[in-house]
């Protein structure tokens, strides 16, 4: 398996007036060719910061990579200069953003925005570029592509704009595509279409994808592997089946339990949620960051950071409950 991206022990901080926000605290992950890795977790857990670090797209300053390495297609991203970064961005790795309504330049025709990256990286002429723009729109199933390329973003609907963003991201056939909550700003029927489109294109082109989301339905739809993030750390990582059926971390369990389900909890009439709120990343706790909200928290959880405990092939979780000396308890939740 060809490795597209390796992140090792990445620490990213934001220097603010109030102090240093430790947004990403020791994340390690990897993505292989043709693989879809989902990063899930609640808002502010560091998913986007991690992903944007791959392109060094976090504004620096205030963002700062404190420690760790990022290797994208054999290139060191952390120590890359401006010129090298520009040659990576858009060509080796590209990104789809959350809100298609604001991610396109309102004063530039779609076609021109679509081909900007190809013209920049491959030096395509204007005529070839406009031909390519039509092909790209057809690739993301936009009808009347030849007329559409001349139009401006405000003449497109939200779903169509997200298709344009996808086409734009794919224009240089990148090795890695980062989709940062690509469906969050869309309504439900359009969400399904966009996910289907992404999955279909992924199969056609064998592009590796990092899918950032807090929608576990989207994860089930297309991810091969899943990394669950909490307070700047990956707390559990494994295959899609591992996460959905053999999850080992209480946070993963709590996330899954808070999915609205038709078959349970009809009596209370309320959606299940995780009590409490995530820790303050100005001063992250020295123990497990989830300890304060965890139903199984023990004394050690408050004091010491749990290491990763392997749970099988490619499946590991950072939780003291998995330590061999920990007394096994009957885990609560929906299944028992």
């Amino acid at each position, binding site marked *: 398996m060809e490795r597209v991206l390796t992140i090792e022990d990445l620490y990213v901080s934001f220097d603010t007036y109030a102090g240093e926000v430790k947004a990403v605290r020791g994340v390690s992950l990897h993505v292989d060719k043709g693989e879809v890795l989902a990063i899930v977790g609640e808002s502010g857990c560091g998913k986007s910061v991690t992903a944007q670090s791959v392109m060094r797209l976090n504004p620096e300053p205030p963002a700062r990579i404190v420690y760790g390495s990022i290797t994208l297609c054999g290139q060191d991203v952390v120590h890359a200069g401006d010129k090298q970064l520009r040659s990576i961005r858009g060509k080796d790795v590209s*990104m789809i953003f959350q809100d298609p309504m604001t991610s396109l330049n*309102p*004063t530039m025709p779609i076609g021109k925005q679509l081909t900007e990256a190809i013209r*920049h990286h491959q030096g395509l002429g204007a005529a070839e570029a406009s031909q390519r723009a039509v092909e790209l729109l057809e690739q993301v199933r936009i009808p009347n592509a030849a007329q559409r390329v001349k139009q401006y973003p405000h003449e497109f609907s939200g779903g169509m704009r997200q298709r344009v963003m996808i086409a734009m991201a794919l224009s240089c056939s990148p090795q890695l595509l980062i989709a940062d909550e690509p469906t969050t700003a869309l309504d439900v029927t359009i969400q399904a279409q966009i996910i289907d489109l992404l999955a279909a294109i992924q199969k056609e082109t064998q592009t590796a994808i990092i899918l950032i989301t807090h929608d576990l339905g989207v994860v089930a739809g297309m991810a091969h592997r899943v990394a669950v993030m909490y307070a700047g750390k990956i707390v559990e990582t494994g295959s899609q089946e591992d996460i959905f059926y053999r999850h080992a971390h209480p946070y993963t369990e709590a996330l899954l339990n808070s999915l609205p389900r038709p078959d349970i909890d009809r009596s209370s009439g309320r959606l299940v949620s995780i009590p409490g709120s995530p820790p303050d990343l100005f001063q992250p706790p020295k123990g497990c960051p989830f300890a304060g909200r965890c139903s199984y928290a023990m004394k050690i959880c408050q004091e010491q950071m749990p290491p990763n405990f392997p749970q099988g092939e490619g499946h590991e979780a950072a939780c003291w409950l998995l330590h061999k000396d920990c007394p096994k308890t009957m885990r609560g939740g929906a299944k028992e």
Partner: protein
Amino acid sequence: MALLSYILKRIGYAALTVFFLMVLTFLMMQLLPGNPFLGDKAISQVTMDALYAKYGLDKPLWEQFLIYMNNFLHGDLGLSIKYNRPVNTIIADSFPYSAELGIRALVFAACFGVGLGVIAAIKRNTGWDSAAITLAVIGVSIPSFIMGALLQYLFAVKFRAWFGFGLPTMGWKGEATKILPTLALCFGTMATVARLTRTSMLDVLGQDYIKTARAKGLTDSEIVGRHALRNAILPVVTILGPTAATLLTGTFVVESIFNIPGLGQFFVKSIRENDYTMIAGTTVFYGIFLVAATLVVDILYGFIDPRIKLTGSRRES
């Protein structure tokens, strides 16, 4: 087609605006104390009556207004009471000076203002930014009569003392005489434009589509030139319209300081001298300029931002 009907409609509104401007000017002139013929020497009542009759001021106000409107529609702004020359001729003689000075100042202010604003925004919180902002604050807070005098002192008096040559401080003949008045006139506008551009640019640079552009691997100058500037320029264009009208029709202060025979002096003098036709003439001239500049700005919007569709009818929008 939609644009044409929009423009026609706007011209209709413009005509209405100018009409009301004339009515108001006409009425307010009557409130001015004194009359045009009061001077150092006392004038007998007989002479006064004869003068009133000569300039038609003995007629009722509504009749005066109708006569004035009739002349105006025939392109005649009347005879200046003070100078005993047609207002048309006075404007035709002096406006070219004011217009040239105004255009120079406007172009200079727009180019350097936008440039400074962009630099300040890109190099935010650095020495460049502070320098540009300091310059802008100075420009906004120093009135043009002080700026004019300062420039004269520095570039004419001091330069002559230091280097043996200096820039001329008077008149409007040859390029050298035009430098200082242009600088004095443009400085305030340039500062305003710079501040506005900086604010607007900072807003645009924080937009998602700038991140999209960065994610494509574009260079900073490509991002600013292709994506940011066009989106950031709209508020600047908005203020440049009325500013253009003000600068082009002449400014009393700068023209007085540099002794330029422009139109600016007549705005002020005519009121002091109760020169009714001159007051109305200069006011209408300025009014038409202002309305036209606003219309040009609104049409420019449509070209800068494709989301703004200019149509003649209310329903389409």
